[in-house]
């Protein structure tokens, strides 16, 4: 009976004024994305370009001059190679540990047999809540060289010799890896679990009818269907591996590991840029880091065949 009380927009004669233009559907999206455009230009595009330029400069307070490839030539030294090697070995090993194991664990946790799923999912996630500073403090103490420190108590109880964990290249790397596993295992497992939620149960049921066993189902259904998630986890792990700095900074109190066993690429960047105040050299480290991560990500996405697909 009664008409719906719809108030229409009055098209006033002032619709060409600036304020109504600002309110129009044409302009509104640009207003919405304005913060991104500003922040992108000031805090991303400009610094990237500037890092590139700086890497060809010698920068002293107050002035800077172009010196061609000298910074890059200076990077051709054993310490930097060590940093690249450390970062690469660390990244490779984290990929090796932190992709297959969480994937299998996620499949276990998702299986019908498993109980207390939510409890385990939450508990394994808790390490991710701690800051690297706190986590580093704990591991630094637990892997300390004192007789009474946790790891030494543990291995002497097993009848082994006590160790200087953070004084040895391989034991130091192992400590970094245990720390990485501790903080990331739960998260990566969670990613894979999220992926598993999207696989319909029917696929598994029809495979069961065809007589597939658990292993067959895992290799023929779970792994291939989790591919998008796996690519994602791979990509962020490469990023995380090469960007690693704080862990090492905390374990060896500020970038000063014996014989640089814990020096990473970002550690080298930090050392040259801030500790030695050589901004040009630091910028060059950044560009090399960028190049390495770009190449690896590109190769990895190619291997996964991501570029073959359309889209």
């Amino acid at each position, binding site marked *: 009976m009664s008409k719906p009380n719809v108030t229409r927009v009055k098209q006033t004669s002032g619709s060409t004024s600036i304020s109504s233009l600002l309110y129009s559907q044409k302009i509104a999206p640009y207003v919405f994305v304005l913060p991104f455009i500003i922040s992108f230009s000031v805090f991303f595009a400009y610094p990237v370009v500037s890092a590139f330029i700086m890497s060809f400069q010698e920068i002293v307070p107050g002035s800077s001059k172009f010196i061609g490839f000298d910074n890059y030539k200076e990077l051709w030294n054993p310490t930097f190679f060590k940093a690249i090697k450390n970062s690469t070995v660390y990244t490779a090993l984290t990929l090796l540990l932190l992709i297959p194991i969480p994937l299998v664990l996620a499949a276990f946790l998702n299986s019908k047999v498993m109980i207390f799923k939510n409890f385990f999912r939450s508990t394994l996630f808790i390490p991710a809540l701690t800051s690297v500073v706190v986590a580093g403090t704990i591991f630094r103490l637990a892997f300390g060289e004192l007789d*009474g420190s946790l790891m030494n108590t543990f291995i002497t109880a097993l009848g082994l010799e006590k160790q200087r964990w953070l004084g040895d290249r391989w034991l130091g790397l192992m400590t970094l890896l245990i720390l990485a596993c501790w903080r990331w295992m739960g998260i990566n497992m969670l990613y894979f679990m999220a992926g598993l939620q999207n696989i319909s149960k029917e696929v598994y049921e029809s495979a069961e009818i065809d007589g597939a066993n658990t292993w067959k189902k895992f290799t023929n259904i779970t792994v291939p269907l989790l591919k998008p998630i796996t690519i994602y986890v791979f990509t962020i792990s490469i990023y995380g591996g090469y960007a690693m700095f704080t862990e090492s900074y905390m374990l060896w109190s500020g970038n000063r590991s014996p014989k640089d066993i814990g020096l990473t690429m970002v550690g080298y960047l930090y050392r040259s*840029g801030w500790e030695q105040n050589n901004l040009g050299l630091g910028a060059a480290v950044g560009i090399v880091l960028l190049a390495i991560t770009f190449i690896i990500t590109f190769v990895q996405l190619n291997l996964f065949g991501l570029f073959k697909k359309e889209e």
Partner: protein
Amino acid sequence: MKTAEETKWSLNRVLLLLLFTALAIFALFPIITLAIASFKPAQELLRNGLNLSLDKELLTLSNYTNLFSPKENYVTWYKNSVLITFTFTVLCLLLSSMVGYALAVYKFRFRNFLFVLVLIIMAVPLEIIMLPMYKLAISFHLINNMWGVILPFVVAPLPIFFFRQYAGGLPRDFLDAARVDGCTEYGIFFKIMMPLMAPAFSSMAILQALASWNNFLWPLIVLNSTNKLTIPIGLSTLLTPYGNNYKILIAGSVFAIIPVLIVFVFFQKYFIEGMTAGGVKG
């Protein structure tokens, strides 16, 4: 036959339970040892390292009382951290949700271009731009200033991406209905779409607040006077090659985890949704 099947299942079940219990212990163990250590005098840590002994003689609350004594800076760091985390999270959600929403809802020039930029930023290690950013921060007078910590990363790619995904899934009918009702584009966003995106806001709020609370490298670069530091930076200054201030460090670390753990216990669902959001890219 059925019983055989059941016993086989239960063996698997027991094995899985054992495996995951071991993993859960591995996950919680370091935090528990830290908590125990926080009740022991610093000298004990220096002598015997981090260990699990619960010798009653040793246990004391002095680390915690010391944490709040006026001669320590911990309370100041805590305040700084709370203020920075809060401001960062509010601004980040507001600005990033606007961008994500626009990318999902409007068709406009540069839309795809902007989205590609978001993806690129997600893939570039921000460490490479720390030096020019540092120079920038100096010229903007942002050194030792909480805005210096907040501003550069406040429009963050991950939340933009997440809000775009979320807004894309909302019904468009609301938009047209609201326009007919005379609502402006901004009114639509703030009054209609924002409430509809509440779940996205919760999970991103938790995730961004966590990231900000635990952020290290950039605040380490921007902040350097003792009373301006955040908790992670402050704690890291207590570890030096010449000796470590365990009194503050251990109890301070425990106190830094507590708010996060409390939030986690209450908002687990949103934590987990937020974490997995990035991975589920249809």
